[in-house]
């Protein structure tokens, strides 16, 4: 129900106060709009020289050579998409598992602590994930995954090419692992809310027919929330695409076009983080800002996709 504004025939001082307060609140909201507009304008203006200079080649070429002033963004762009995609592939099954466990199977004594652990996982700053990835995960991965695979897999086979790379643990795959842990709590939390929103009678009807919990979840509940669940995935994807520090620590920072899972690579955000403060030439700065614009467009698309999918379910 909406509140009908009530006309107060009081002193005009109060009316003036009201108008003044509303104007202040309104301008704060406009500050938000201006921030986003400024962000886009800054990226477009800053990135324009590089985009104009290289044209479409900027997106296709994988040359990134600050000395020769030749910039092609294919390496970081593909690196961003591949790490985020891999991260989602790892995080999604886990997130579904956690959400289902919390909603269907978890004893209520435990549920509080498990959901707190998931919330805490979301709260850990990305630089901490980065350090953990670099000093704990990467050495472990090199020793216990990369080296054994190196001995077992024939280097000329398809798998051999997929697993090619220096066994130091700093590569696209470990970056995706870290990203997966980081986005996991976001997706799991949204999925859990969605599962809780399934009407109880739908669920109980399925149980009443003698379905096992697995059948209820896989044939009734998950299909019921499918659309919104895709939206949740896109939200997580947006986070994975833009994540900076954790990836910068562990991806190995090479601008080459990524050719194997265990090769070092770069993402848009890691490239900007590494080079922006040191970029000396105008074209270099502009190329990095153009990269930023590309990242903004990609994450914006993911967000809009997520909103459309989640919104349609509710309506």
């Amino acid at each position, binding site marked *: 129900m909406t*509140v009908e*504004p009530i006309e*107060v025939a*009081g002193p005009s001082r109060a009316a003036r*106060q*009201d108008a003044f*307060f*509303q104007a*202040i*609140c*309104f301008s*704060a*909201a406009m*500050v*938000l709009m201006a*921030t*986003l507009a400024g*962000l886009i304008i*800054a*990226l477009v203006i800053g990135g324009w020289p590089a985009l104009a200079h290289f044209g479409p080649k900027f997106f296709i070429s994988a040359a990134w050579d600050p000395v020769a002033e030749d910039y092609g963004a294919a390496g970081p762009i593909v690196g961003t998409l591949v790490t985020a995609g891999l991260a989602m592939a790892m995080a999604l*099954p886990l997130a*579904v*598992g*956690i959400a*289902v*466990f919390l909603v269907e199977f978890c004893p209520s004594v435990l549920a509080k602590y*498990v959901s707190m*652990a*998931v919330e*805490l*996982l979301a*709260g*850990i*700053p990305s*630089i*901490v994930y*980065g*350090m*953990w990835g*670099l*000093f*704990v995960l990467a050495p472990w991965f090199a020793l216990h995954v990369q080296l054994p695979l190196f001995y077992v897999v024939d280097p000329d086979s398809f798998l051999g090419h997929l697993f090619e790379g220096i066994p130091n643990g700093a590569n696209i795959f470990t970056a995706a692992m870290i990203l997966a*842990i980081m986005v996991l*709590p976001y997706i799991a939390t949204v999925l859990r809310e969605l599962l809780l929103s399934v009407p109880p009678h739908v669920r109980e009807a399925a149980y009443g027919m003698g379905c*096992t919990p*697995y059948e209820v979840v896989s044939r009734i509940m998950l299909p019921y929330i499918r659309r919104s669940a895709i939206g949740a995935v896109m939200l997580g994807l947006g*986070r994975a695409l*833009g994540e*900076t*520090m954790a990836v910068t620590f562990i991806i190995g920072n090479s601008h080459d076009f990524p050719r194997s899972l265990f090769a070092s690579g770069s993402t848009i*955000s890691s490239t900007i*983080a590494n080079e*922006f*403060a040191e970029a000396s030439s105008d074209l270099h700065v502009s190329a990095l800002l153009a990269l*930023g614009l590309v*990242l903004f467009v990609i*994450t*914006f698309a993911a*967000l809009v996709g997520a*909103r459309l999918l989640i919104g349609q379910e509710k309506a």
Partner: protein
Amino acid sequence: MRFDRRLFDRHARRKLVNYGFVGLTMAATAVAVIALLLILWSLLANGLGGVGLHIFTMDQPPPEMPGGLRNAILGSLEMCVIGMVMAVVTGILAGTWLAEYGEGKRLAEVVRFLNDVLLSAPSILIGLFVYELLVRPLHGFSAGAGAVALAFVATPVVTRTTEDILRLQSNQLREAGMAIGAGKSYVIRAIIWRASRPGLVTGALLGFARISGETAPLLFTSLGNPNMSFALTQPMGALPTTIYQFALSAFDDWRALAWVGALLIAMTVLAANIIGRALARGSHHS
């Protein structure tokens, strides 16, 4: 009745699949919990040994010299507090507009959507924006620019929680205020804000938790400074940027300090998260 072997097999298979499924969901949950424990454990194992009074009384050292993190801690604190003040003022007012004045307005929907875009925009882009906005025109990295960048990161968080919290207040409360002759703005400030105080504090704490660990927006704004500085016009050290620099260095004692810094940040952020959520839960009960 004849015992039907096929029916029995099918039942057994369904039960088996179900057990497998329950096991898998448990395993997924275990992965998340174990990841959290592993991360906390490495923080404690690597960082706790280095914690001491010197961390808070000495500035960050040159390589292979004794030192602490005082300049970085105080720098982080200064920029976060200034950023939070800006974010809380803007965020609460903007959230108030959305919740109290935006009803049914098309513009409010647009603002709400743009706020979501800002909320999900990669924070490194905020850093680039503030670089173009404040650093390049003023010819120099500065703590002020860093604080503004942090404010831009925190404002959407505060706006979002403020709007959500204010919407939870019942309309009777608003009507009661107006019925005794108070103007709309007075009702909002004296009644709605006051009733929502725990929620607003939660929003601010969550915003604070978010920015106190943020590194990317500071890289090209406040840059970092090995010396103690409180000037807003000069580069300033901050815990995240110092950790970034030290962790990637080749010096063992710098890396040890980076672990201590990471431990401090993680504990601060987790504490802010826990307190914020506890406050939010407490206010729902009452």
